[in-house]
């Protein structure tokens, strides 16, 4: 494998401390807790056993900090920004999609649809850079790097810290939001148009129910059902959902560490981050199936 970090560290130790190859090798395998001389399958089994006790190994790029600590420190930031971005784009998308479908063919519909199509096609990191150019470079309204400014505020439950965190998170959330609300709008719009043609909507109209009752209780609810599955799947992707946005803003979340671990060849960290990602996606798929059968009784066929 190219760029093996053990090999490059051995080279470093030999040149810097004048160690012999064997000494450097032994020192490194001891300090990372990796039994390099054992056969590969034994190493793999001990890796699997360690996972169950939360031992994800030591980071190689961040001076031997346990991987689990880096992951635990990164998760809150990612969950904070991406979940706000996801839920706000979901809600706004549903409302705009409903509006566009009700005004089908009008100028409002055209405007919403065109805007959604265009913003959904443009990569989120492009928005991130444009927002930085507009709001940071020119207007100097927001900070650009990190999750909070450690030289100005102390982490904790105090007002300056919260304001600083919100100021740092605003642009990442906004770029996530702009890049993703369009898909929700387009999906909701086409669902609503389908539902509007259903018999039960005609029946509801014939019964003389009020317009808003039909819109929310009959059309909106049914059109939203498939979107909930998609939302649940996206909740699983929250943990790795915005690698590039976090990279652009140097925001210390999971995605940022993924891109860092690649450039520093930090395999234990990479493994740990991936492990968390896959667990969260699998769990949320499971939850999605349960929630969907609660929401839509038609699915509960057994």
């Amino acid at each position, binding site marked *: 494998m190219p760029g093996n970090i053990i090999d490059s560290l051995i080279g470093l130790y030999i040149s810097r401390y004048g160690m012999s190859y064997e000494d450097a090798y032994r020192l490194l395998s001891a300090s990372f807790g990796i039994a390099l001389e054992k056969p590969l399958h034994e190493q793999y089994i001990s890796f699997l056993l360690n996972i169950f006790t939360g031992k994800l190994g030591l980071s190689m790029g961040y001076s031997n900090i346990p991987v689990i600590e880096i992951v635990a420190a990164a998760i809150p930031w990612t969950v904070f920004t991406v979940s706000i971005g996801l839920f706000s784009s979901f809600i706004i998308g549903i409302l705009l999609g409903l509006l566009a479908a009700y005004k089908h063919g009008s100028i409002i519909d055209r405007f919403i649809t065109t805007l959604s199509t265009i913003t959904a096609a443009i990569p989120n*990191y492009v928005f991130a850079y444009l927002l930085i150019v507009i709001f940071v470079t020119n207007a100097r309204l927001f900070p650009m790097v990190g999750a909070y400014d450690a030289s100005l505020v102390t982490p904790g439950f105090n007002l300056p810290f919260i304001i600083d965190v919100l100021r740092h998170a605003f642009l990442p959330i906004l770029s996530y939001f702009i890049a993703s609300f369009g898909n929700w709008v387009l999906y909701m719009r086409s669902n609503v148009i389908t539902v509007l043609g259903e018999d039960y909507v005609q029946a509801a109209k014939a019964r003389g129910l009020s317009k808003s009752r039909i819109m929310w209780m009959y059309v909106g609810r049914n059109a939203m059902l498939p979107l909930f599955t998609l939302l649940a799947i996206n909740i699983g992707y929250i943990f790795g959902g915005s690698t590039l946005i976090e990279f652009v803003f140097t925001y210390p979340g999971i995605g940022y560490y993924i891109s860092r671990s690649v450039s520093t060849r930090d395999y234990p960290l990479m493994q740990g981050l991936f492990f968390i990602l896959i667990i969260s*996606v699998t769990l949320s798929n499971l939850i999605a199936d349960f929630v969907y059968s609660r929401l839509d009784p038609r699915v509960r066929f057994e």
Partner: protein
Amino acid sequence: MKVSEILREIKVLLRIYASSKSSLFGLTVVIGYIIMAAIGPYFIRLDLIGLDKPYQLPSLKHPFGTDYLGRDIFAQIVHGARDVLLLAFIASLITVAISVSLGTIAGIKGGKVDSCLMFITDMMLTIPGFPLLIVVTSLIKGTSNPLILGLIYAMVSWASPARAIRSQVLSLKRRDFVEASRCMGFSTLYIIYFDILPLIMPYVAVNLLLIMIGAIYSLVGLSLIGAIPWSECNWGIMINVAVNYAGALSVPKALPHLIAPLGMIILLQVALIMLSRSIEMIFNPRLRER
């Protein structure tokens, strides 16, 4: 008779592209990009040393200005277009090939083959695509071969189009004409080729463009974070250089270096999505109203 049919088809196409401005926009821009990528590099010389004054504003000689070393930005854009388009096209072609063949086989065969293939597909769907892409490309660092990069992209992203194709095939399978072919004893391969594929082709074409949009997102993003250093002037690398070396986020005069690749990406992605919608319109007359 054949000629008149073709003429009628062309007439329909022309009417669609004349009536819908966004379709015309998409088609024109995509053709423009293809021409730029195909013949541009032969006419515009790429200057990698820096022969002119740095940080020039756009002018007739340098349409997009010059970068922090005095290199022409427009030339970099044109040469980068070839890499981006070629890579995105190869990646989406391989993805479509894999997903169409697996989706059709799963849909047609059904039973054990179907559930086995869909099990693999579902497993692939649980792995977040972009992070996996970062890891895999970093493992084989040093490759600049578009074919290998395209193959990696396809490996990561074939699953969800395969599921969509399968559900299309499942609904077609129950149609009368497929049943008829089956009764007449045609082989499965024959049925796939003559009964199923022609009907899902428009769907596949739209998917090809949508996958291309995704591929451009991922591959430019990968070169942006430096996971694939495979070209001198790929747009993602241009953005990276503009931000990290030219200081485009703090030095206003370096802004053209950043805005040029960003603008080119925006224009291309929007044009591709418009083109995909116009193809949908061509094959689905119900969308054509207005």
